[in-house]
């Protein structure tokens, strides 16, 4: 583990029990996150992409312990910078302290703001919870934060319903910044927004990163957005990371067939850009009963016997490039050529 690692997740698992009846017996488990390893360095943006149900959102929530992880380690560099602390086993008091350094921005700009609180109260709430600063100081800080995200001071006395989706998302960002965190988990922060507003928010996130030296774990399903904002990208499928590399390496030189297919499926806003689509048959299997061997094998056009029987190791396949595919070395997969 190098000194510039801010967060290191090892073997993270989150199974949701499916309960039935009065006795609440567990009849099955949804393996939402099934063994995720991921490291995030100080100051970078790591994109986490995948389709719905792949476990990317649960991963983000488990890192913050908004949902209790079933197993795994979540090592985070705490206040004193010296050593890594395991978030997964931290005591309530320690956890409260850790949460000053890791915050979250949500997808839904409507449900994420309490309709009965003023914008100023919403932004100052984390400070109040942590018991930092007095009332007047908190209010002043809230105004600063609102200005930092492109809103004006007189917005602070209004209620959330008076704002549009994009403005609400800015309020959510201001709240996340209130505690001056090191890491912000962005959970699909732009996917509920209209295209022209998306760009505003993406630009804002980039500006804030530069200004405050933030680190982002950027969770999204939109490959174009992830490619635009991330330094490195991890691709998730059915609870596992199947590939991780620097953005350019991943997009130009994918090593996992799922990444290849996913990229070819993204519609490109250019009528002359004709990619040959790699058809991906069928649907994502259920995370209650994932396929044996490689989770992706039923939809993979390169699948062989070994893929059906053995779980591929998540391993380094090129310099700083990880993938979990038995055939990563032999397949010449097609990426996006730069233009």
């Amino acid at each position, binding site marked *: 583990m190098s000194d510039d690692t801010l967060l290191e997740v090892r073997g993270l698992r989150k199974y949701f029990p499916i309960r039935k009846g009065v006795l609440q017996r567990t009849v099955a488990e949804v393996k939402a996150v099934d063994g995720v390893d991921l490291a995030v360095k100080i100051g970078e943006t790591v994109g986490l992409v995948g*389709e*719905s149900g792949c476990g990317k959102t649960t991963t983000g929530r488990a890192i913050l312990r908004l949902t209790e992880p079933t197993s795994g380690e979540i090592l985070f560099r705490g206040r004193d910078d010296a050593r890594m602390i395991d978030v997964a086993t931290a005591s309530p008091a320690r956890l409260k302290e850790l949460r000053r350094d890791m915050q979250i921005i949500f997808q839904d700009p409507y449900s994420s703001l309490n309709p009965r609180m003023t914008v100023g109260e919403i932004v100052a709430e984390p400070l109040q919870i942590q018991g930092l600063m007095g009332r007047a100081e908190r209010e002043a800080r809230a105004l600063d934060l609102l200005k930092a995200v492109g809103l004006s001071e007189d917005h602070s006395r209004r209620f959330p319903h008076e704002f*549009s989706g*994009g*403005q609400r998302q800015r309020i959510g960002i201001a709240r996340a910044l209130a505690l001056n965190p090191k890491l912000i988990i962005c959970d699909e922060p732009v996917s509920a927004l*209209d*295209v*022209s*507003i*998306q*760009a*505003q928010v*993406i*630009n804002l996130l*980039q500006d804030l990163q530069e200004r405050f030296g933030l680190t982002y774990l950027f969770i999204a*399903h939109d*490959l*174009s*957005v992830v*490619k*635009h*904002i991330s330094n490195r990208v991890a691709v998730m499928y059915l609870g596992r990371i199947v590939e991780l590399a620097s953005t*350019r390496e991943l*997009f130009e030189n994918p090593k996992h067939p799922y990444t290849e*297919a*996913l*990229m*070819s*499926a*993204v*519609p*490109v*806003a*250019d*009528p*002359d*850009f004709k990619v040959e*689509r790699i*058809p*991906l048959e069928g*649907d*994502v299997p259920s995370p209650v009963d994932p396929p044996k061997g490689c989770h992706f094998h039923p939809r993979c056009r390169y699948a062989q016997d070994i893929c059906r029987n053995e779980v591929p190791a998540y391993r380094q396949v090129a310099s700083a490039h990880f993938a979990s595919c038995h055939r990563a070395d032999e397949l010449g997969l097609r990426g*996006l050529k*730069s*233009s």
Partner: protein
Amino acid sequence: MSVDPLIEVKDLKVHFHTEDGVARAVDGVGFSIAPERTLGVVGESGCGKSVTARAVMGLIEAPGKIEQGEILLRHNGRTVDIAKLDPRGAEIRGIRGTEIAMIFQEPMTSLNPVFRIGDQIVEAILLHEKIGRAAARERAVELLAAVGIPLPRQRFEQFPHQLSGGMRQRAMIAMAMSCNPKLLIADEPTTALDVTIQAQVMDLMNALRRDFNTAIMFITHDLGVIAGMADDVVVMYLGRIVESGPVREIFRNPKHPYTQGLMGSIPSLADWGVRRLTAIDGVVPSPFAVPQGCGFAPRCPHAMEICRTRSPDLAEVAPGHAAACFLNQVPT
């Protein structure tokens, strides 16, 4: 391009009369679709694209009202104005399903949850064609196979909740295609789907369009989907068309500042150079309080004095390519 258009919409206005005032959802829209062409309608939420589609289907009901305009369709050898028909009358019902069919954004809620998939398709066939139930069943199974649903006979017997999202949208498409419509209206049909499933559905629609010789009105907010589907494009903003033209023209040579802004707002997969997106400032005004002059003027970086007082009309800027912006025309 000299073929007669299949459908022609002229100066359509649809307003919603609510307690909070009048929402001018569609405020003077005109376009036409030629047979076997795909028209992409693109715009952000609230621009009036879905309301336009429903108007073409004759599906506008209270509190919405078609205030003005014509929707001309050739039907049984004569021209019918859909805007004038009773939305629950027999004549529009004869057009729906046979001349124009429609698919929607949410395949889960658009299919009736209590009827079998197959029966819903059979119903669509029997409503318009005088054939026996058995023959209609055979047709429905064939259609399910044609839209790429594996084991169509088994799927026929299933209920919507037993299918995945992609399969449901395929079933909706099968139902829409059941009476060989000349125009298929697709209202954000892939928005609720994952990218890989979206790609499947787009490929399917492109294939069906060749096989059935159907024209498509494809509504979406996603410029990438438009680029992959449309022959022609109209860009809508605040109830109006701000730009229209062939797809390549629109993407290569956008003339309206809003279209340009949209293009700059989306990060491109194909491009590595861009570090910062050129966003459009501000927010879309409420349809209850449409600004005077050009609707885009408050957000437009090139807005001039005239833009705030007068509303520009669509004017041709190149053959087949029109934009509603004073930058491209000499005000008279």
